[in-house]
């Protein structure tokens, strides 16, 4: 057949813009940018069909470094802008790049509503638990007691758990990865790219200037095996090189157990990312270091109609049913009268 589309053969370098990258040396953002450039060419989508929308913050400079369509907008509003972009251009693959302050503080409302609408967009939240661009104030994900420029006596607030927020707002795809875990991050971005609906991805990202080492428990080669647990659909939750696992108690609480003896692999919690009820994913999201190993991977991936699809279908259905709008009929609707 001659109607076949030409094979799009793109390379990561095709996605690099001509702009000098101005993140601090060794910032975790570099790795995320690199993995993104790796993933996009594998998707079979022409370059002009990608659009990156961001808010304000270090992470939000991301679109400038991608040679795609990009909109570096205002603080917190990227999900709202991206929603309209996707509604108007369903053929575009829409990515939102945001940070912990941008998404969860000033933009919390937009994040929540984009997720519950299930707009077909991929939201990548770079979580470094600090305000970097404004030089080191605490963020909504900073731990209680965190001493920063604006909290010299320690932060009083209780932090938000980004995945709990996403699950609480009915996200259809929820995942987590770490900036330096290149393979895992690539896999997670790939899965997000393939999800239809809002894909929410939290990436632990090191701000090596203002909050370095915040996630060393998950990145330190010597300890990470004991501190993180890689989620795989349909597989039991094991970690520490297969020595330990997660079992659910009779009170439906997770507990860390040593394998061997009277605990067998079959006793462990099986990961199911497809379960519609969110309590499984929610339980995993609440497992935090140091009490638990922190889960990495796809927490939840379910299908649900997307907002943009249904909204556009209402329009196409109305046109199919009523015919394309007749301007004369519209202007002449209601009671009319003629003056001779």
């Amino acid at each position, binding site marked *: 057949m001659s109607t076949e589309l030409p094979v799009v053969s793109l390379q990561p370098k095709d996605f690099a*813009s001509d*702009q000098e990258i101005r993140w601090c040396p060794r910032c975790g953002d570099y790795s995320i940018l690199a993995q993104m450039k790796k993933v996009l060419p594998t998707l079979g989508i*022409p*370059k*002009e*069909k990608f*659009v990156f*929308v961001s808010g*304000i913050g270090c992470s939000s400079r991301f*679109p*400038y470094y*991608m*040679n*795609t*369509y*990009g*909109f*570096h*907008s*205002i603080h917190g*509003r990227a999900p*709202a*802008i*991206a*929603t*309209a*972009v996707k*509604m*108007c*251009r369903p*053929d*575009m693959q829409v990515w939102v790049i945001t940070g912990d302050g941008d998404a969860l503080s000033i933009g919390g*409302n*937009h994040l*929540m*509503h984009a997720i519950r609408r299930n707009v077909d967009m991929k939201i990548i939240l770079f979580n470094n638990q600090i305000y970097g661009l404004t030089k080191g104030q605490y963020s909504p994900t900073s731990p209680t007691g965190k001493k920063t420029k604006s909290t010299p006596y320690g932060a009083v607030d209780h932090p938000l758990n980004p995945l709990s927020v996403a699950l609480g707002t009915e996200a259809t795809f929820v995942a987590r990865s770490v900036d330096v875990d290149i393979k895992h991050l690539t896999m997670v971005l790939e899965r997000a790219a393939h999800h239809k609906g809002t894909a929410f991805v939290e990436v632990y990202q090191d701000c090596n200037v203002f909050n370095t080492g915040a996630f060393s428990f998950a990145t330190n080669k010597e300890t990470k095996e004991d501190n993180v647990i890689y989620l795989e659909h349909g597989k039991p939750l094991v970690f520490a090189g297969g020595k330990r696992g997660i079992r659910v108690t009779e009170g439906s609480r997770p507990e860390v157990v040593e394998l061997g003896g009277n605990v067998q692999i079959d006793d462990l919690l099986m990961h199911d990312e497809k379960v519609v009820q969110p309590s499984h994913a929610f339980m995993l999201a609440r497992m935090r270091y140091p009490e638990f190993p922190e889960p990495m991977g796809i927490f939840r991936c379910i299908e649900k109609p997307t907002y943009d699809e249904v*909204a*556009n279908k*209402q*329009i196409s259905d*109305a*046109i199919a*049913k*009523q*015919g*394309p*709008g007749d*301007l*004369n009929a*519209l*202007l*002449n*609707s*209601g*009671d*009319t*009268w*003629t*003056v*001779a």
Partner: protein
Amino acid sequence: MSSTIDAPAQQPSEKRLETVETVVVRFCGDSGDGMQLVGTQMTNVSAAYGNDVKTLPDFPAEIRAPQGTLAGVSGYQLCFSNHDIFTPGDAVDTLVSMNPAALKTNIGDLKRGGTLIVNEDAFDKSNIIKAGYEGNPLDDATLLQPYRLHKVPMTRLTRDAVAGLGLSPREADRCQNFFALGLVYWLYERDSKPTENWLKEKFAKKPEIMEANLRALRAGYNYGFSTESFTVHYHVAPAVLAPGKYRKLTGNEAVAMGLATAAKLANRRLFFAGYPITPASDILHDLSELKNFNVCTFQAEDEIAAMSAACGAAFAGELAVTASSGPGICLKGEAMGLGLMTELPMIIIDVQRGGPSTGLPTKTEQADLLLAMFGRNGESPLPILAAQSPADCFGLIQEAFRIATEFMVPVIFLSDGYIANGAEPWRIPDVSELTPLTIEHPTGANSEKGYMPYKRNPETLARPWAKIGTPGLEHRIGGLEKWDTSGHVAYDAENHQHMVRTRAKKVASIANFIPEQTVEGPETGELLVVSWGGTYGAVRTATRELQAQGKSVAHAHLRYMNPFPKNLGDLLRNYKKVLVPELNMGQLRLLLRSEFLVDAYGLNKIKGKPFLVSEVTDAITRLLDA
């Protein structure tokens, strides 16, 4: 069972028919009494009969304030005439008052000698106390002596009329408004057929409610016809309007229709993002019904999101609009700045209401002009248009899209509560008379180095509008300052000054692409009255009256608020004095004084109500005599 009014074959000889030119009727009652409904019905009937019509709905912010209280009074005023009129009238000829609270809040607007129709059944002790009267006002000869009072037992008569239909007393009482309407229809010789048809359609699935309202309407009509209470009724001939087909239109309807028309003529999608707010919500409602016109509406989570979504849709290459009122416009300010910085076309509609803060949500005011001019951080001029009447919104909102797309700039469109909810007849244009927008999107690179998103059209200074998804035109925009031409992020000092000046120049140069300001009246003289927005009708009526008396007064009504028409400065200097009537503390006056160094006088009213004609004539007369 007949459900139509049988018109009496012949009027009894004692009923006198007087011919009058212009009539002002006001229905007032509790907010649950259906006053807006019957007012709208009478407006439709009068417009369809061929009168010129103007309306002033006036309702409380509470959906149902405590029954019978002053706070809960809802009113609907309409003026109909045998000639063209510009306002809903200063003083009321016939006041229909459904309870004591409505009487108390409205009696002051009734002309001496005017007709006062009250539902005397509602004047019980409890309602009288709630209205704050010491005793029954209907027994107060001093209070009511100046008026032709008709005490009508509407509750009882309505219950009698609907008896046998199996309605509860509460349901029966809800038909009282149609009894009152029927009576006023008789008083002004109105044809009740359109209202009957409306009731039949509205209550097609509730035949007993339909029949009850039809009976109430008929009972009211017959009450006027047959009782001795009314000895005279009135005839208002159709107005001489320009030939053509007409319909009635409110400002919000005209905006929605104008937006859909602009998009349809351009064969494009209309993207509308909004958040519910009085008095702008009807634009969202109306557009939501027009999906088959490829209208996409988005009820956003808040005003900020609605404005941001408009930016997103414009970036995507669609015709984008958002609408709100003052409090919402404040929230939109930051994202409006983003639209300005990224030089994307869109419309921001501000249906002004009484402020500051929540202010008077259901009342009109013109106090957002300076917000529209200056309500953003940095040097951030935007073009501003202001509609002068409900029907004017239809054409002017299309003009807003023309400017937005030709100059690549967000355009602010000012309406107000009076225009938004007020109605007037509108001559329906032929679709072939309308001018479609001409919009071009680049399909290839515009320089040797590729696509330059800020390479400007030398004439309009507009940048190109690349549709996302176009191969080869991938580019990034954002809120940071950018290099001219390339659009790359730039912190350079000279470039910033150049870009600030360029954005300002682009907006200022729109003056070369809009009509010059016209004046009604002498080209030079003693006094020029300059108005804008919804005060058009009152000012036009006032200046016409005084011109007819030979006074040296002219009227200039502005629709282009930024930039001003380029001849405005010269025009102001052709008169010895300038008067600027506004429903604010003098915002246009401030702009005129600073821009043109003219010593303008202000007439300023901040009561949540439009000007009365007499207030304007009085101010003009005083200024001429001074």
